[in-house]
């Protein structure tokens, strides 16, 4: 227990916490969107994220950027990064749609128990993890250093580096984009309608299957983008990378109130900070204990998360 570090390193812990939170958020949104529409935990979403990271790496291979090359110039970096994030989003988005089609669609139409879907998703998750473990020969993959990480400027103990700034700006941009899509587009309308009440919205002429597919696409794209930022920030991945990120992101989604987009954001940043502070004070190995204890406390006070709407119990 060393609280002194909270003071001496406050700025850097906070800054990193926010950066990590931003990455969580992009993944958490996928959980929350799907949950909003289908009321089920998309257990394989973490694998969608993993596929994104692998795609990022694949792109650098194609571009012939060796792991040990020197950082690129800003111009060429911008180009490369755009390529990477597009590819990753595409790959993740598409695989999310395929996942829905293979693992969920039939069960949804049969109105099977949500747990059946959960297990089906777990199976899919096993499959994807193993597939990539075999492809990568269960190696850790080193991602090339694309951009120089010398601090641009320093705020007390926090070193502000380009990659972190990139994550923050990029994530923020995506949040606004998502906000527009959800609140000002036909798709968004559909999503909100189905989340409210599938049967009715179907009667009102919403094509539920289409909405669901698009929701998965949206979630996948966000996770893919998240994976691109993740790779630039951490510069490593492996077949089971999704698990740790996924658990944190899902926890964040629940913390904020699963099914609620703003909640996912709030939850993610809160979680990012909690993790940084707790691992600094108590040690990294107690991080998850602290996280879950806080989660329990929050849920006991607000049973549906920070921004969750009051428990909508079935009208009696």
């Amino acid at each position, binding site marked *: 227990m*060393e609280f*002194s*570090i909270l003071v*001496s*390193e406050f700025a*850097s*812990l906070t800054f*990193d916490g926010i950066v*990590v939170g931003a990455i969580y958020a992009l993944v958490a949104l996928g959980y929350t969107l799907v949950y909003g529409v289908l009321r089920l935990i998309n257990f394989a979403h973490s694998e969608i994220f993993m596929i994104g990271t692998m795609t990022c790496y694949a792109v650098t291979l194609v571009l012939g950027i060796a*792991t*040990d090359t020197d950082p690129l110039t800003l111009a060429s970096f911008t180009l490369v990064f755009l390529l990477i994030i597009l590819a990753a989003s595409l790959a993740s988005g598409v695989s999310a749609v395929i996942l829905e089609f293979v693992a969920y669609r039939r069960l949804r139409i049969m109105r099977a128990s949500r747990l059946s879907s959960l297990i089906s998703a777990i199976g899919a998750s096993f499959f994807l993890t193993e597939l990539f473990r075999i492809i990568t*020969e*269960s*190696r*850790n993959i*080193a991602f090339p*250093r694309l951009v120089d*990480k*010398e*601090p641009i400027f320093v705020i007390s*103990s926090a*070193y502000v*580096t380009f990659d972190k700034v990139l994550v923050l700006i990029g994530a923020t941009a995506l949040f606004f984009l998502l906000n527009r899509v959800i609140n000002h587009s036909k798709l968004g309308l559909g999503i909100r309608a189905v989340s409210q009440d599938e049967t009715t919205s179907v009667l009102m002429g919403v094509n539920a299957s289409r909405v669901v597919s698009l929701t998965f696409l949206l979630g996948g794209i966000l996770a893919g983008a998240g994976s691109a930022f993740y790779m630039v920030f*951490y*510069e*490593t991945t*492996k077949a*089971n*990378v999704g*698990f*740790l990120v996924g658990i944190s992101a899902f926890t964040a989604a629940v913390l904020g109130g699963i099914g609620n987009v703003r909640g996912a954001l709030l939850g993610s940043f809160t979680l990012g900070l909690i*993790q*940084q502070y707790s*691992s*600094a004070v108590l*040690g*990294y*190995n107690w991080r998850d204990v602290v996280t879950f204890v806080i989660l329990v406390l929050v849920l006991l006070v607000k049973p549906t998360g920070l921004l969750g709407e009051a428990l909508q119990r079935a009208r009696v």
Partner: protein
Amino acid sequence: MNERFLMKRKLLALATSTVMAIGVTVAVAPSANAACAGNYKLYFQGALTGPAAETGINEYNGVKLAIKDYNKSASVKVDADAIDTQASGAQAPALAAKVVADECALGVIGGMYSGETLAAVPVYDGGGVPVISPSATNPALTNKSPVFHRVVANDLVQGPALAKIAGRVGKKIFVVDDATPYGKGLAKIVKLNLKSSQLAGTDAVTEGTTNFSSVVSKVKSSKADVVFYGGYYPEASIFIKALRDNPATKNVKFVAGDGVLDVEFVKLAGKNANGAYLTAPGLPMKTAAPKLYKAYKAEYNKEPGLYTLEAYNAAYFFLEAIKKGNTTRASINKFIDDEVVKGVGMTMSFGPSGDSESIVMNEYTIKNGKVVWVRKL
């Protein structure tokens, strides 16, 4: 504890003699091995799949090579077989039980990591199966069972060596481990061998950690000039990068044990790996046994890994025993306890604790992307 083991030893000896007696008087081999005569088996225990597969495959290659060489000239042929634990203690016991049940199994080369070995040894002990591990270094294995032996020095030797190096290169040392049996165990010994004035602080991460920023912050605020990492290369490579990226910890020295000493570490950490101070009880095959090194590359056309030589020699020890006509688990146990075997590039003999009596410890470093052997410690 010890008495129990001595008792067991006596019993084993007794069993051996009776079995031999029967073998002599009645002109048939002991029934247990009747079916096996000619196709005895040596098992390798380790990860052939899963995250640790690379090391495991190299070790198994070493074993297979030793057996291949032996079979060329031997009258009693021996087969190599393996149980793939994926280096997990959870899987090891059930697989070990299979070896115990296999009447033709004379011995086990393994386990590869400490955790899986700790889990499996009690099972082998129950079946009296002799075990020689090429790479399990956790001190908890010492005196664990009369059937367990290892050709590598345990962490009680490696730990102090690492502490000495850390003290040599810096004043304030920050100790981090990965909460695995190996990493935590090694870190513990290193801490014990540091003066309290030297220990700047500690932290523990978990396998699969990618976010080291909080750890780096702690290193920074502890003003440490050396970091010791007890763990394996995947996390180590991320950790060292994180250290180098932070101006405040750019020049902190990085010291780690044999879990990090791996070509993969260099691949993953890139330039950042350069100048790391690493140790391993293992010998680089290239320097210790050049001829074998050539043979190995010819056989598998790939570089041998760390402990490949030890695996080869562990197998070699068994094969010597069999060559001398020991074809029961009991007699081989006895052979291992009593004999000294001059292997390839190393001489092997085991004390009652099961630890090797000819201990070697080596210091390595990374020079522009290559693992370089520095000195014997």
